[in-house]
């Protein structure tokens, strides 16, 4: 996550007054060179995989359209992500109505650590996830909303916490 933090800091610096920016230009150049060198040496950094992992809702939810404790297994690769949304009941078992759905990438803002993705629910609804990463907490959390597309009254605030960065194969198999 240090990569994201660095990037956030860099964006904050970019918004500093012009004089400060000018004064810090050499430092920024050095930092860019170091980042470049680090990037050259490693190929990728944590920022490119920041969202990868199993994210479990912190609390069970109970609405007319979503009940239980959803879990997102996300694969994050640079500017894109994919994964599976698991719909679990309060006891942690897959929902009988719709156990899972694939996550389709919509948008991803690495600087803001924010993304939007959609999931085709079993009844044909399309769910939209709008979540933002907060890596200052332990464990890290994704917080935001989940809504049903084109149904403005079906919006729910939701928070997920990272339970594991490793995703076993069975958590990728959504066979409904």
């Amino acid at each position: 996550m240090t990569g994201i933090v660095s990037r956030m800091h860099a964006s904050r610096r970019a918004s500093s007054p012009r004089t400060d920016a000018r004064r810090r230009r050499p430092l920024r150049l050095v930092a860019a060179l170091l980042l470049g060198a680090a990037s050259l040496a490693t190929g990728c950094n944590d920022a490119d995989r920041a969202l990868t992992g199993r994210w479990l809702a912190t609390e069970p939810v109970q609405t007319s359209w979503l009940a239980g404790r959803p879990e997102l297994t996300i694969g994050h690769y640079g500017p894109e992500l994919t994964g599976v949304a698991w719909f679990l009941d309060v006891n942690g078992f897959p929902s009988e109505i719709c156990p899972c759905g694939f996550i389709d990438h919509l948008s991803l803002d690495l600087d803001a650590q924010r993304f939007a993705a959609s999931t085709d629910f079993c009844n044909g609804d399309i769910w939209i996830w709008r979540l933002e990463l907060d890596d200052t907490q332990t464990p890290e959390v994704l917080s935001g909303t989940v809504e049903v597309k084109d149904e403005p009254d079906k919006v729910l605030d939701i928070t997920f916490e990272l339970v594991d960065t490793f995703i076993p194969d069975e958590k990728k198999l959504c066979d409904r």
Partner: protein
Amino acid sequence: MRSLTLVRTLAVALAAVALTAPRAAADELPRGGWKTLEVGVLPVAYFGRSGEDLFADSPEVRQAQEITGRWHRMIEDRLAGLDQVRLARTSQIQERLSRTQDYRRTVAVAAERFDLGVLRYHEIQPVEALANLSKANDLYRSVYADIAHPHELADVAFYQGLILVEQRETTKAHMALRDLLTLDPTRRFERGYYPAAIEQALVGAQSDIAMHSDLMAAALQTDRLDALAKVLDIDVFVVALVDGPPDQLALRIALYDRRVRGFATSEHFALSDEALAADELDRVLTAWHACAVEADRSGIFRKPPRKELYLDIGYTHGVWLKHSRTRDPLQSLGASLTLTWEPTPALSLFVRATQSDTLVDGNGDLLDDFVRSSLTLGAGLAFGPSAVRFSLRVGLDLGLAVSEIGMTTDVDCKFFGTSSDRCLTSFSASAPAVWLGADFTLGARVRLVDGWYLSSAIGITSYVFDPDVAGALNFPLHATLGFGAAF
């Protein structure tokens, strides 16, 4: 196959150029020169006057003194003509002595002492006079005024002689007057001006000099010559004098060598036949010169034989410039071991083994790291000074990856796997993946210490085989930095 043809053509051209380049013969020869000898000629004078000649202007003596002056110049000229000899003529020696540190101050103090001694002599205070004159004598000699300005010192000796004769110190007076006439061998006196006892002592001293019983020995005090040589930074002094009656002149010559703290040559020959005497002088100087000149040891060293084998190891970083299945260039890092043989200074044959790991990119388009081993064999041109050598090389490169290489830009393939139904397009090269092509490298070798060097290289490889693999990943630009040893 065009690259291979190019490699073959270049290799033939390189071999032709490099093999026809001559070996640097000078590499094998010792470097350095002959040491130049600093040779100084001390004053040359005629010492063959009789006692009576001190009081009369004899044409024969004047002629003998002229002949002496001519031989003095001849000695200097002959020495100046010798190789590896830098001559300091007598006048130059006197000038250099006059410019030595403390010379003026010491001579001024000595002159004061002399004046004081003369004053005490006229005040009839012989003991004080002798003390001051003796001090003046010591001061003059301490700065080698007996060579630089002998007449002043001769005056001191004269007054010492006068006082000592009056004090009836016969032996001391004789030595003082002998010093006088040795330092100033042309001095003459007016008959009857000085008391008879003094004239008699002068005649005795001159007769003694003319007999040269110990004249050369007096002139050749090695300790004093050695000290003088250090002051003037002279290697060899030529000490010469002419003696004998005017019709039987003879030249005595000796060469003092500071390096051995002794005399290298001591000869004497008659000057009656000038041509013969000149030959004798040449013989003496040539014989001395043949043995005296030596190689400049400080500059002599045999250049070590040129190293032909070089083994270096280094860190290698690479970038695949062609990456048709990934969005960003792929980076690789690893190590390389290079063995170079330079049978001639211009030809460089090499074999390089490289092991590198190509890393997953930020997008994850390369599904997993893969390790690649490559072997490069080739030749090139080497050039530049021994401290920094450059090489331009062409080689045949064979690369091998023992693991499968998977690449895709489909994010579902990355997460769910390439066998998943959601994975639409991906590239896979089954193990072992093989590359074959031509490598072009520009290298540099910087000598750190004897036998060790810093190596760096930058190059690119163009693969032509296997077409599938090379179509997906090609033209790795590689840079290496390392160190090595020469054998």
